[in-house]
Structures are given as C-alpha cells and as structure tokens.
C-alpha cells in the first residue's frame, strides 16, 4: 500500500481567490526517492504542507479530497503526531529553530519520542556529524550563518529517522560540497533504512542522480510524473522552466547534431562515459 496517497486533493488558502493546487492525484510507495520540482509559486511547498498536517491545522483554508500519509489522515491527527512519521525540513530554516543550543534543537524531537538516553546521544552525535555541525553544537542557532542554520534543521530531521522525510529546497543555503555530502547521506538513509524521501529542488544538477522519480508541477497541477531520464527529455519540462542538469543539456545539444550518446546522463561520470564510447567508436 502506498505510504502517501492523495485523491482529488484541492487546497485553497484562507482569503485566496483560487486554489494553490487542484485535483492532485498522487501515490508514493514506501522507499521511493521523489524529486518534486516546478516553477516558483506552482504549489510545491503547499502540497508538502499537507503531508504533515500543517495544512489544514496551521494554515486553515479549505482542503477537499482525500489524503492518507503513513496510514493516517493528517486532518484527524495533531501536527506533533504526524511529525513522528513525517520529518519536514522547511524552505526557510530559521522558521524551524527554537532551542538555545544547536544540540538541544537536534535532540528535541528524539526526547519527545521517549527513546533511551544513550540512543538519543548516539543519534544526535551522528546527525551533527553527517551535517558537519558537530563543532557548533553549543552555539545558539540564531547566531549562525544561513547555511549553518539549514544544517541544524536538516540534522534535527535526520536524527528522528522518520518513515518519510520531506525536504523543501534543503540545499538553497548550503555550500555546494556540503549540499552534495548531505544529499548523499539522505540517499543512503533512503536505500538502507527504506525511508521515503520527497525532495523539492530547483538545482537538479545536484539532485537528479539520486531520484527514482521526478514529479513536475505547474500552476497547481502535476503535469509530469516520470523516471528522471525520461522526465528531462520531455518538452513539457522545458516549457515550464524546469532547469534540466547541464549534462542533459549537453546530451540534447549533441543530439541536435546527430551525435547520440547511449543514454541520458544524470551525472558527469555518466556523461563522460558515454562521450568516451562515441570517441572510441569514431576512432574505429
């Protein structure tokens, strides 16, 4: 059974003239790594807010249709209950930090789960280390740089190891090398613990290689739902302004001149491999 299932879901913010998204039908299976993308303002964040009950509990408005997440209807469970199943990294990390120290922020959710002390200790240390903020653990979250704050927000969610992790543009404040290593940690959690990941991203260069599925939204609707290699070739993707990775651009540019790489590359490694094949066969 799908871990997230939305049927004919439509949501309108209070006082808004039109719905932020309309008639969304979506099924996500346990263990998938989904990349959710689409133009700025198309409804990505709004859709994610339904997964952990922020909509309707916090935002109000009118939610029509049905949604079931980890077997629960978010509208019938409190946000803190949903939070035990769905970890959410907000687009703006500052909105998520509240404790006096980084370490307390990361430990907060775990303490609420009632885990044993040493298990909490182990998970907090692990999360601080994989996000590269162990040395900042005694600092106040509000006195950190933007990227450091974003790492705290990510660490807090990773430490919980919930069934579903939703990350809303989690790399926007991260330096590129940290973004890469944190996405790799998330990918590992996805494979090893079968955690379902929903990643909202514009920078597909960073994220494409990890996803098993790409969902593109436009003006409040899902317009494409495909595996990455196919999604990036779709005309629709280009039309709505989704930025396909540079290596895919190169693939398409070469194709225009009759040079066909053996597959659509999702990483520089894959691109280089295919180009080498072409060079070798050209040499005869």
């Amino acid at each position, binding site marked *: 059974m799908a871990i997230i299932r939305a049927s004919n879901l439509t949501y309108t*913010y209070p006082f*808004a003239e039109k719905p932020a998204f309309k008639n969304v039908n979506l099924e996500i299976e346990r263990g998938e790594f989904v990349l959710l*993308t*689409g*133009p*700025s*303002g198309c409804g990505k*964040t709004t859709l994610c807010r339904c997964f952990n009950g922020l909509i309707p509990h916090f935002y109000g408005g009118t939610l029509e249709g049905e949604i079931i997440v980890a077997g629960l209807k978010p509208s019938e469970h409190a946000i803190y209950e949903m939070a035990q199943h769905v970890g959410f990294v907000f*687009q*703006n990390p*500052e909105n998520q930090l509240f404790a006096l120290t980084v370490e307390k922020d990361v430990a907060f959710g775990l303490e609420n789960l009632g885990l044993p002390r040493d298990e909490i200790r182990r998970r907090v240390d692990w999360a601080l280390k994989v996000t590269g903020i162990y040395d900042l653990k005694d600092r106040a979250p509000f006195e*950190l*740089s*933007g*990227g*450091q704050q*974003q*790492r705290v927000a990510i660490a807090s969610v990773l430490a919980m190891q919930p069934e579903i992790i939703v990350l809303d*543009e989690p*790399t*926007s*404040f*991260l*330096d*590129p*090398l*940290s*973004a*890469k290593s944190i996405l790799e940690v998330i990918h590992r959690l996805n494979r090893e613990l079968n955690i379902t990941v929903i990643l909202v991203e*514009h*920078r597909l*260069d960073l994220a494409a290689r990890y996803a098993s599925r790409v969902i593109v939204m436009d003006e409040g609707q899902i317009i494409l739902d495909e595996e990455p290699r196919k999604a990036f070739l779709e005309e629709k993707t280009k039309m*709505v*302004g*989704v*930025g396909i*990775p*540079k*290596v895919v*651009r*190169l693939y398409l*540019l*070469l194709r225009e*001149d009759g*040079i066909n790489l053996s597959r659509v590359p999702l990483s*520089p*490694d894959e*691109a*280089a491999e295919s*180009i*080498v094949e*072409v*060079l070798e*066969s*050209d*040499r*005869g």
Partner: protein
Amino acid sequence: MGQNGAGKTTLVKHFNGLLKPSKGRVLIDGIDTRHVSVATLARKVGFVFQNPDHQLFSETVEDEVSFALKNFGFDEKTISERVEKVLNILDLTHYRKSSPFMLSGGERKRVALASVLSWDPKILILDEPTIGQDSYQKERLRQFIMQLNQQGKTVIIVTHDVEFVTECEPRIILMKNGRIIADGDAREILTDPNLVSEASLVLPEITQVFMRLNDYGFPRNVIGVYEAKRLILERLSGGFMR
C-alpha cells in the same frame, strides 16, 4: 563564494554600513562607512538580504516596492513608472496587491530584489539571489543583472549556485574561515580542483565531464555547454568516421 560560515554575509554587510569594522576601514566611493549612517549609504548601496523575511514588512507587494522610493523623495510619476517596470522584470505584476507574506519563498525573494532594484542604486549587493528561483526566473534575473552591470553598476553577488555563476562568468572571490583565499576570473577559479574543494565548492558539471576526458586530449578548463559541444564536434569531425 565559499563555505558556510566563511564570513561572506558578514563581509558584505560592511559594504552598506550595517556592520562597522572593529579594525581597519571600509571606503565606499571614498566615504568611510564609520562616518555615515546606513540610511545615507543606502541611496548608493542596495542590499538584498539572504533571507527575504528580514527585509519585508509592507502589506502589499506594491507598497513594499515603492517604500524606499517614497523615502528617497521621488515624485509620484517616477515612483509608479519604476514600480511598474521592476514588477514586470521580476514577474510579479499579478501579485502587486498581494501581501508579501502570502507568497511562496521564491516569490518573496523576488519581492525583496524588486524593492531594492527599484531605486537603482550604484552598487548592488545580492546575498543568494537565486534561492527559490526556477531556471526561467534565474535566466531573467541573470540577464537583468548583466544589463545593470553593462550600464556601469557594481554588482556583488554571494551565491552557492555554481551553475548560475558559470553563466555569468564574473570575477570570483573565494572565502574560507574568515579569509579571502582566491580572487580571479570565473574560468580560472572554478576549474581549479584544489581551490574549489578548499572553498567547499564543486566543479561545474561540464568541467567535471572534461576532467574525465583529459586522456583524450581535451582541455580541462571548460565550463559552458556550448563550448563543450563545439569541442566534441571538432574532435569527431577530424575523426575516422566523418
């Protein structure tokens, strides 16, 4: 560019007097920032914050964007022309009567950009301008920034978006642990693997491809898709099959 916590935001906040140096001095157009107020510098130095929520306060997008113009004493007609123009450039016209707080993250960032671009400062400081922007919005923003730069404006961008930078090809300053560790043109800096990893960046995608093709005699310092295509085509047309 550079690592999280390297000091980029702290440094650029010195350029409009938000922070004053505890030692040394900062001259903006010959004026020592310690001797003038932020308000005086603002006419000259426009600053867009990393987090738009630190900047937005008005009830409508239109009010937000005209606020500074009113403060600087522009006349009604100029104000409405400028607001019109900048809302159009940032694709916000349909939100003019909306509250900035009801917009998406990327849209709020564009409102913050609009509110500063509207008064046409000589120096522009943009802390992470591409956050939340899809590639279409990024490209519009890039063209606008390049145009301002060609008109003689000084533009300083703090960003982690390597691919965006390869498309602008600016001068790059790298920071690490509160120090400047490199200063040079984009191609030179972004294709230097040691510098790039020291600053916690990654090589541009296309550069990564060409580093792996080095055995085939390709240059290492390729950053753009079009030059990449040209180089590969040249190689093939000289080959056996064609």
